[in-house]
């Protein structure tokens, strides 16, 4: 007893086993089926872009944390997730150096300048993607057919030429991770099962898109399965840091994402509006949090 050291720490003295790192690594695990599908369809390009994005993201994080004289906490896995998400959102033939630039922008401008993990208002991977899309428009919209390197003109969202089955399994042109609805749903189920994904955001997002597609006379199933809606709704919009923290707020956020997406898809000059729909709603997240504070125990009773 005399020679042993006692822990001095306030209560609670027991804690849940889940950690930030476990949450991040679970997201990585959920992205594995998506990456596997991308590699099956697009071959080496998938491995090249995702690896490069991860290395650039983790590297940028390490360097900038060191420059900010902060502990280099790259093992928390957050930069790994950002790099992986960015890589999977890129078109297969994008030059390597552009992926590196995208990851750098995502981590440094999307996250570190705001104060690092937890302090960024916008989804870092989408910030990186938005900058690439604005800077290198033609490379960021150069799509290839699966199993080939042949560049085609358009994704199914624009061409309208794909069967539901092709869209579901993913044998269509598109960004690496967005084509296979099946793989995305697998990952989503894992995240939901592990309590990391709040169903309200993807259900609100996809549901709103479905209803509005129906209202405006579009093919509802086609609108849901094509483009990057599923990938974004499951993996990007549900980013904990940049989405609301209240249950009602998550519905508002999901529905808002759907509204912006539909406006861009149907009336905007861009074919796909996923990136901007989420980024726009990220900007509203603090306000949504403020407006949707839940009633506390005993609150209404007192006011009566």
């Amino acid at each position, binding site marked *: *007893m005399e020679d042993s050291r*006692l*822990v001095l720490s306030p*209560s609670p003295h027991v804690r849940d086993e889940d950690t930030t790192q476990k949450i991040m690594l679970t997201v990585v695990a959920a992205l594995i089926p998506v990456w596997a599908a991308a590699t099956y369809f697009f071959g080496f390009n998938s491995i090249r872009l995702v690896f490069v994005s991860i290395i650039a993201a983790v590297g940028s994080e390490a360097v900038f944390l060191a420059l900010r004289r902060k502990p280099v906490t790259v093992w928390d896995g957050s930069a790994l997730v950002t790099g992986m998400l960015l890589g999977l959102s890129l078109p297969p033939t994008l030059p390597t150096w552009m992926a590196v630039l995208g990851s750098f922008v995502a981590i440094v401008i999307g996250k570190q300048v705001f104060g690092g993990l937890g302090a960024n208002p916008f989804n870092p991977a989408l910030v990186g993607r938005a900058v690439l899309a604005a800077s290198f428009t033609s490379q960021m919209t150069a799509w290839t057919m699966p199993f080939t390197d042949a560049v085609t003109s358009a994704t199914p969202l624009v061409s309208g030429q794909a069967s539901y089955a092709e869209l579901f399994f993913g044998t269509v042109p598109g960004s690496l991770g967005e084509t296979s609805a099946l793989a995305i749903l697998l990952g989503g189920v894992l995240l939901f099962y592990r309590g990391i994904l709040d169903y309200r955001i993807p259900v609100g997002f996809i549901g709103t898109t479905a209803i509005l597609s129906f209202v405006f006379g579009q093919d509802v199933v086609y609108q849901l399965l094509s483009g990057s809606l599923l990938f974004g709704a499951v993996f990007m919009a549900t980013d*904990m840091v940049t989405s609301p923290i209240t249950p009602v707020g998550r519905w508002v956020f999901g529905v808002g994402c759907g509204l912006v997406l539909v406006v861009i898809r149907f009336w905007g000059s861009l074919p796909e509006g996923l990136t901007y729909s989420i980024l726009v709603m990220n900007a509203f997240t603090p306000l949504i949090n403020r407006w949707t504070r839940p009633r506390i125990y005993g609150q209404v009773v007192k006011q009566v």
Partner: protein
Amino acid sequence: MGNKTFPRGGGHIPHRKDATKNKPVMAMPAPQQAVIPLSQHAGAPCRPVVKVGGRVKLGQKIGEAEQYVSAPVHASVSGEVVEITERPLLDGTKSMCVIIENDGLDEAEPLVAQDYSRLSVSQIAELIREAGVVGLGGAGFPTHVKVEPPKPVDTVLINGAECEPYLTCDHRLMLEQPHKLIEGLKILMQAVGARQGIIGVEVNKPEVIRVLEQACAEQSYVRVAGLKVKYPQGAEKQLIKAILGREVPSGGLPADVGCIVQNVQTAVAVTDAVVHGVGLYQRVITVAGAAVYDPRNVLVRIGTPIRDVIDFCGGMGNPAAIIAGGPMTGQLVQDLTAPVVKPLSGILVLSKDEISYELNQPCIRCARCIDHCPMGLQPNFLADWSNKGLYDQAERNHIMDCIECSLCSYVCPAKRGLCRSIQAGKQVVRAGKTAV
């Protein structure tokens, strides 16, 4: 069996009760020297009414409460008062204590059994006060104050949830002394004029529910309510919501919704106080944790040093922390010479593998603290505002409604000290209020 619960928040935490829940309570020999603090309760400390060198009997009052919110203290051994001095308490702070050298005789006044059915409310309250009964679940709030509520009360609830991990002292008492518990409940009902008494027990104690249901079988106005196993089911406001569906208004008391809540052991102490006129000089505590060799529930005299209690349970191996109370809300023991006091429900001698501590990594806004908060608060913001000194903002957002159950800190994946920060903020807000 029932499965009542509070609707919002809460969570599942490990129980870790198996080591002690099946062992009968064992009485521990009285200590050689009893160290009896004059303040063992919420409220004003007592004034000593014995002198150094004087003889005291077992159960004799040695400290008198001079204010309403306070409770007298009693000798837990017979013998000579050798010193009245400051001694360290569990949390390391010092307090005036009466130190009695045990003569080993346990000489006491003869007990007189009393029929309480003819006693008035104020007579019952006075007997409870005289016996020094306070909330034995941990808060230590004087019980005689609770039985004179400011508003009419129709229900007395007995809190048998025992939702903290490790602790099984209430579990054992309910099993071993169901009739004493129910008698205490009836006395409390008579005192406050309640028409029903309900004992809330989590359904992970089926044998307790069976025993209590048998014991209540003949009385239609006393019954058992099975509660879902969820932390913090034993928090006063959550228990009231779960059993009665009533919500205590923000800043209010249980009496505002027509009930009072008492801990199991408190009700048993009420029976001793009112029926037998016995002062509160001993209690049952759980001694558990992987670093204590023989974990069990012990009937121990108030004033016994913590080290003696651990030694009685086989001593300890290589503890990482020793905790007074449960692991969710208990405090670290800072001094092993500190005595057992009335509100102490357990001594946990935890090994390195059982304990987890704060890391304070960045908040990733996962909102688990919000989803789990049983009061519907936003612990992440409240903690943040407290840390930044934005107390007005914290107060506007109901920081004072926090019940300090620590579930937010428990679920936080970044292992932030949310509850600790909120507690600190509450202290500042409270101090600001009294200063005005």
